[in-house]
């Protein structure tokens, strides 16, 4: 493992370890097509940039690579033989809450972080049955469970420089020595008493551990912090709301659209003081483009859901930021959903790819957003190149590419005392946190998503620190078609769907696609499925012990063979009916999601188990 403090450690390391690249990949050079991975496709096909190249033997971070492709270059398992997959190992996490995490594999060890109580296990992949090498129990405060809005999940750890970084529900970021499981540092970043929790998977970029908070439903103020990888000290904090100085908007800031320009918009687009409790948390995914040296992250919904009390655009909630990783200084920002009224968090993944647009290849960022649009943006400038709906959307009628404005449908905005029916997509959006995958071989994005609509009624919201600050009655139900979930393949170049698979329940797991042209995802019934990445034909499926909401990964084991791993354990927001002690007679339970999931207990049960598959 290289420990050089190179200016471009990633690409160098890749080059050395697997030597996949047909041409030299250097830090500042123009990206070239890594020929082995990418079969030549007829002209105009999209190609991945250097940021997508990664070590296919390992899986160091939940999104696999900085470009968030979740694409594995391994091709041992392919469309022809995937039907022979079988379980080679299982491991019970001992927790039966929602397992949203991705296992990470570094070297010959697999690391799992469980939902609260956030125990970390290191599994030895060299021994049969993958026994645990060590485990670490951070003992988070029990009370933190009471302020976690949507189950006590954790979305995974990240491995870097021989250390494992992960977050706990009670706002700690902890660095463990990956070999021994001993903590190196432990930094407390927030206070559960104000409603803050952390559920996201950190990302390490250029020696900074990037961590954001959760708690948009509790009236917290969202932030993204960079911690020094060695010491755990906070290097910078970028808030989502408030004056430019705290949002880290400075002279570098050059947003593309006029509506995002102005001084202290994070204050002036709010009623007095409301920005202090205005949400915009950062509990989702971060991508990094080493060429431009920019990180990309979203911000969550404004708080409270009841929009009456916060007239204005409510910047910078439900937005995308591009920042410099060293200083956090914002380079551009774009507000996807100004003055959001439907909990359309903007924290989904951004997939960084190169895409031919109008005959020229552009460095783009693809964001399947909660608000129902597949944003294709120039990741250097923040210009929206296209924004096509990829599900049923009636809460807005499109995005004006000139002004960047979302055309909100005023009829679908609930206010206090008014019930608005049939809002699509529902609060979890067309797609929630569950990350999609991108295959440079097919040029398609594989999107696990839901198909839900909802009724909403504004309620007066009272702010009490540390208690939910929502102000909305919500009742969700299946969208048109009656299926609650979809696994969809989307062609970002054409802005059209390639194929899709209807699932009865929301597809709340992440997606994985491999160079064998197989796409993997799990369903909440517990089926782990492999489909043909080009056609969507179901090739193989396996019923796990509990519903799957985790993120599947692929790695090469010590034996040189390709493995697929996924955590099974239903829960999360979608699985609240099983994760919590809820009563489905109340259709507003778990912010209305339970209404759409009443039949879940008859289809699966709680669980917490790692499954590893191989041929």
């Amino acid at each position, binding site marked *: 493992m290289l420990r050089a403090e190179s200016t471009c450690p990633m690409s160098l390391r890749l080059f050395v370890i697997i030597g996949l690249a047909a041409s030299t990949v250097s830090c500042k050079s123009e990206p070239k097509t890594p020929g082995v991975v990418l079969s030549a496709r007829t002209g105009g096909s999209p190609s991945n940039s250097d940021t997508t190249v990664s070590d296919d033997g390992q899986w160091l971070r939940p999104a696999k690579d900085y470009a968030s492709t979740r694409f594995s270059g391994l091709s041992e398992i392919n469309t022809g033989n995937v039907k022979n997959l079988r379980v080679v190992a299982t491991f019970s996490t001992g927790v039966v809450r929602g397992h949203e995490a991705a296992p990470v594999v570094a070297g010959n060890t697999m690391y799992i972080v469980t939902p609260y109580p956030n125990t970390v296990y290191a599994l030895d992949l060299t021994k049969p049955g993958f026994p645990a090498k060590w485990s670490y129990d951070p003992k988070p405060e029990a009370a933190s469970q009471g302020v976690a809005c949507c189950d006590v999940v954790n979305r995974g750890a990240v491995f870097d420089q021989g250390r494992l970084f992960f977050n706990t529900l009670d706002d700690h970021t902890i660095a463990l020595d990956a070999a021994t499981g001993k903590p190196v540092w432990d930094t407390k970043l927030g206070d559960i008493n104000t409603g803050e929790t952390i559920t996201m998977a950190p990302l390490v970029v250029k020696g900074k551990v990037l961590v954001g908070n959760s708690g948009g439903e509790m009236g917290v103020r969202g932030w993204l912090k960079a911690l020094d990888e060695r010491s755990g000290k906070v290097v910078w904090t970028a808030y989502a709301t408030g004056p430019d100085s705290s949002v880290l908007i400075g002279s570098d800031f050059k947003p593309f659209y006029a509506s995002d320009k102005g001084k202290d918009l994070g*204050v*002036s*687009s*709010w*009623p*007095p*003081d409301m920005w202090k*409790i205005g949400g915009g948390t950062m509990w989702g995914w971060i991508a990094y483009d080493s060429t431009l040296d920019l990180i990309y992250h979203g911000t969550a919904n404004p708080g409270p859901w009841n929009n009456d*009390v*916060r*007239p*204005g655009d409510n910047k910078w909630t439900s937005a995308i930021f591009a920042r410099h990783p060293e200083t956090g200084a914002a380079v551009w920002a774009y507000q996807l959903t100004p003055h959001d009224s439907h909990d359309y968090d903007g924290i989904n993944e951004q997939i960084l790819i190169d895409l031919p647009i109008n005959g020229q290849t552009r460095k783009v960022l693809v964001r399947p957003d909660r608000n129902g649009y597949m944003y294709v943006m120039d990741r250097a400038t923040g210009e929206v190149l296209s924004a096509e709906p990829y599900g049923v959307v009636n809460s807005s009628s499109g995005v004006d590419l000139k002004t960047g404005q979302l055309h909100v449908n005023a009829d679908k905005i609930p206010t*206090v*005392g*008014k019930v608005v029916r049939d809002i699509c997509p529902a609060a979890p959006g067309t797609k929630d946190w569950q990350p999609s995958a991108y295959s440079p071989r097919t040029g398609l994005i594989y999107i696990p998503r839901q198909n839900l609509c909802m009724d909403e009624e504004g309620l*007066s*919201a*009272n*702010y*009490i*620190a540390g208690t939910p600050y929502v102000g909305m009655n919500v009742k969700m139900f299946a969208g048109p078609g009656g299926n609650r979930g979809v696994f969809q393949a989307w062609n970002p170049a054409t802005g059209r769907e390639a194929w899709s698979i209807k699932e009865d329940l929301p597809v709340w797991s992440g997606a994985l696609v491999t160079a064998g042209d197989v796409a993997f995802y799990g369903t909440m019934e517990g089926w782990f499925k492999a489909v043909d990445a080009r056609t969507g034909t179901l090739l193989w499926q396996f019923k796990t012990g509990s519903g799957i909401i985790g993120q599947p990964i692929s790695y090469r084991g010590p034996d040189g063979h390709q493995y697929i791993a996924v955590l099974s354990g239903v829960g999360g927001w979608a699985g609240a009916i099983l994760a919590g002690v809820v009563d489905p007679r109340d259709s507003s339970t778990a912010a209305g999601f339970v209404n759409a999931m009443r039949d879940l207990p008859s289809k699966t049960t709680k669980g917490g188990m790692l499954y590893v598959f191989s041929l």
Partner: protein
Amino acid sequence: MHSAFDPHSPQARAVAHLWWSMFAVGGVIWIAVIVAMLIAIARRGDVDFGGRKRGLTIFVAGTGIVLATFLAYDFAVGHDLAKRGAPTLTIGVTGHQWWWEIEYEDLRPSQRMVTANEIHVPTGQLIEFKLRAADVIHSFWAPNLNGKRDLIPGYASSQWFQADTPGVYRGQCAEFCGLQHAKMAFLVVAQTPTDYLAWRTASAAPHTPPADSIAATGLKVFLSSGCPLCHTIAGTDARGTVGPSLSHLASRQTLAAGTLLNTRANLMGWIVNPQALKPGVHMPAIPLKPAELNAVVTYLETLK
């Protein structure tokens, strides 16, 4: 201070004129009927029946003319009242059981301001009120300035007026809204535009942490008791929206929706036992020790 007889706006004046003319005509008719009745019983001697039928016709025609005149006049006044230019200021009024939430609207969201039970308006400008009910039906009525308008759940409605002269005009909820309907009043403080702006600026000013130590203790007590769960003081961590905002409470003239004059003694009494002053009000008696109470009231009094 609180009368339809004493109009201070073109709207209320038009209605007052209508009233006085109806009063005059109605009074004459009433006296005429009574006089006719008295003559009828006083006149002894069988008077002939002739002429009564014609009398009836004339009477019906006369009544019709009077009513038609009233009707025309009423329509004219109604037309005048409905006519309005663009309001220079829009104020949201939300009726709660039993207090008024007042929100000064502004196209710039950060310039919005929420207060309670006391409405400041500039004179000579048309003010529009957007009316909304948070629970049951209430009715917004400041008789010196305009007629009333109901605040009805499920309906949006509005009312407007233009105050002529500076002054303090009292208003009260006019639709029965439960236990404390009687104590749900508000004040309209009409000020010259200059004074109004000064007030507006002062009221938008951020909260300054109390300098003196008793007041500082008061703030601490305030924040650690149940108070911030229901009340907001702008600039502090108290952000409750259940009860009226207390930002700049000390600059208001009354407490508890026009129930009490804003004096130190009343404020203390109110905090210690609101149920004695306004039985059924949703505010509980706050169990504070005398020193704490003194500190809280001292602090609240700094909120000018």
